[in-house]
């Protein structure tokens, strides 16, 4: 902590006023938990977006460990109009990472607020603080030999359920739609009051993590992808470990096979035969588990089609690979497996790959681990495809209808290639919906490519919007643009709520395009 000069200042706050606020933060947290020096703030500046780091530089970072500290910080922020950007584990890679949404905001770092408050092995529920990681929770459950499985997203070990769920992230098991399985929340409101949602409002309630809705309006949703409060506890449901787990893959040779693939698996997914968040993975997404682009192509621009074909042949990778899994008793799994294999064989398309056949294939292995809740960061191989630290997730929502998925793939590929970038995509299957997840990968050390990536992302948003599509989540550089795409009425309602709950606009201004 120092009296400045600072790395950045909050908007409309001068150095003297900020110094006063920093002194108050220090009284609350102790000097070692109030970071203002450049060296201390560097880890809060790493971004993968194609913009200058300076646009997202924080003025300070505050490390809180107790709820009452968060409440007191919020009160200081109101007094001095200091905007505060809360993070839990702060690993929102491809969506903005750790840094605040705009320059000069104070990061409120809740990583050290990391108590596992309760895991109930009978009711299969958990209640945790924001800093808890999936690795920490996984170890906790293992040590106690609870028969419970987690459902992490791909950055599993280093991220946590609170931050991921609050951005409505997804995983790959039967509980893959994380917000759907969330139950009970504790929120520090912008005025410093403490709200417990659902049954949590009843003193001594023991049903906070078992019944979601409580009484009256159901509020949890307004605290996800929003800036209406700071979540300090989150409850969620855990899946009981099944007796048998059977992951499998089905490989399809042609790009157009996405149509029959989606249409043939949809009934099994909606009908519950395949209970998990299946993924339909494109060639290059699949390839990044084992290879990088420079092994095949060193030219500028998009990877040529003949190179992609060569990668398919030499590595035996399909144009599309479907990954799914079955869970239950041996009898249940056997019955479902027959339905799945009959469907695939009957369709005349696709080659089934069992776990035994896949052997040590790293792509199959990490998919199998994710769908059963194990820790693996194998998918970070994506960031080596081009290297250079540039990545943005372009993630439009699609119907789970074959013709729609093909249309989106073709639209995205055309736009990406036009800007010299590759289609590296997969579909995460919700049943009726798809999260079409496209990693816009670029070399952030190359100024030309950085410019191209920025233009490309804008065009992807525009063109998809024109076709009636919207993204489910986006990085901090494009939040306003995406908020705009959902229309003025949604935006006005969000602003009305923001003004009512946070009149001084101190919590994460700009998150999802929401400001006072």
């Amino acid at each position, binding site marked *: 902590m120092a009296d400045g000069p600072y790395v950045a200042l909050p908007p409309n706050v001068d150095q003297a006023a900020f110094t006063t606020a920093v002194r108050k933060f220090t009284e609350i947290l102790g000097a070692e938990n109030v*970071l203002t020096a450049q*060296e*201390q703030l*560097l*880890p*809060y*500046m*790493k971004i993968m977006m194609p913009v200058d780091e300076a646009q997202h530089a924080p003025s300070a*970072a505050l*490390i809180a460990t107790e709820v009452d500290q968060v409440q007191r910080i919020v009160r200081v922020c109101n007094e001095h109009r200091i905007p505060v950007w809360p993070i839990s*584990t*702060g*690993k929102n*890679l491809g969506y903005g*990472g*750790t840094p605040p949404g705009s320059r000069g905001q104070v990061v409120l*770092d809740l*990583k*050290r607020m*990391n*108590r596992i408050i309760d895991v109930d092995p009978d009711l299969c529920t958990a209640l945790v603080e924001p*800093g808890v990681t999936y*690795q*920490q929770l996984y*170890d*906790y459950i293992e*040590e106690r030999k609870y028969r419970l499985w987690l459902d992490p997203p791909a950055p*599993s*070990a*280093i991220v946590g359920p609170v931050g991921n769920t609050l951005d409505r992230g997804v995983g790959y098991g039967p509980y893959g739609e994380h917000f759907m399985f969330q139950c009970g929340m504790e929120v520090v409101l912008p005025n410093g009051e403490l709200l417990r949602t659902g049954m949590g409002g009843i003193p001594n309630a023991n049903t906070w993590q078992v019944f979601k809705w409580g009484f009256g309006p159901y509020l949890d949703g307004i605290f996800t992808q929003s800036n209406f409060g700071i979540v300090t506890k989150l409850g969620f449901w855990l899946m009981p470990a099944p007796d048998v787990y059977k992951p499998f893959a089905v490989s399809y040779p042609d790009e157009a096979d996405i149509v029959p693939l989606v249409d043939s698996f949809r009934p099994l997914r909606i009908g519950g035969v395949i209970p998990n968040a299946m993924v339909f993975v494109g060639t290059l997404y699949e390839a*990044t*588990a*084992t*290879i*990088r682009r420079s*092994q095949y192509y060193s030219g500028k621009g998009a990877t040529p089609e003949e190179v992609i074909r060569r990668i398919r042949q030499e590595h035996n990778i399909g144009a599309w690979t479907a990954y799914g899994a079955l869970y239950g008793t041996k009898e249940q799994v056997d019955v479902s497996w027959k339905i799945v294999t009959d469907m695939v064989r009957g369709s005349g398309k696709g080659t089934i790959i069992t776990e035994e056949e896949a052997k040590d294939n*790293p792509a199959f292995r990490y998919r199998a681990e994710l769908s059963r809740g194990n*820790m*693996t*960061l*194998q998918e*970070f*191989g994506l*960031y*080596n495809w081009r*290297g*250079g*630290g540039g990545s943005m997730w372009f993630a439009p929502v699609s119907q789970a209808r074959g013709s729609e998925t093909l249309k989106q793939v073709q639209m995205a590929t055309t736009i990406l290639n036009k800007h010299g970038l590759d289609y590296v995509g997969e579909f995460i299957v919700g049943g009726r919906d798809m999260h079409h997840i496209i990693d816009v990968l670029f070399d*952030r*050390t190359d100024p030309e490519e950085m410019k191209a990536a920025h233009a490309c992302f804008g065009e992807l948003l525009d063109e998809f919007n024109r076709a009636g599509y919207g993204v489910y989540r986006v990085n901090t550089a494009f939040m306003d643009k995406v908020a705009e795409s959902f229309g003025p009425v949604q935006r006005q309602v969000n602003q009305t709520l923001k003004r009512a709950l946070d009149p001084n606009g101190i919590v994460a201004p700009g998150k999802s395009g929401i400001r006072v």
Partner: protein
Amino acid sequence: LHAQADGRWRDGEQVYVKVCGHCHESGVGPVLKGRGLPAEALAPITRHGLSAMPAFRAAEIDDQALQALGDYLAQTPAPKAAPQSNGG
């Protein structure tokens, strides 16, 4: 290796296994073991991130744990066979 308690790591090996090893044992990042990498070399890369590698804050891995990680890595032998690598 047990879960970390209250955000404090037990030793350098625990940090390695629970965080770094997920990438640096699987070919996502380069091999770190057996290279005599001192903590002084690890610290700036860990704190600032490097290209494809994310940065890690003191709130995640504090300075003491980072030192312990360096001490642990410095005395590790090189792995017998490099993992199938796409990292660099």
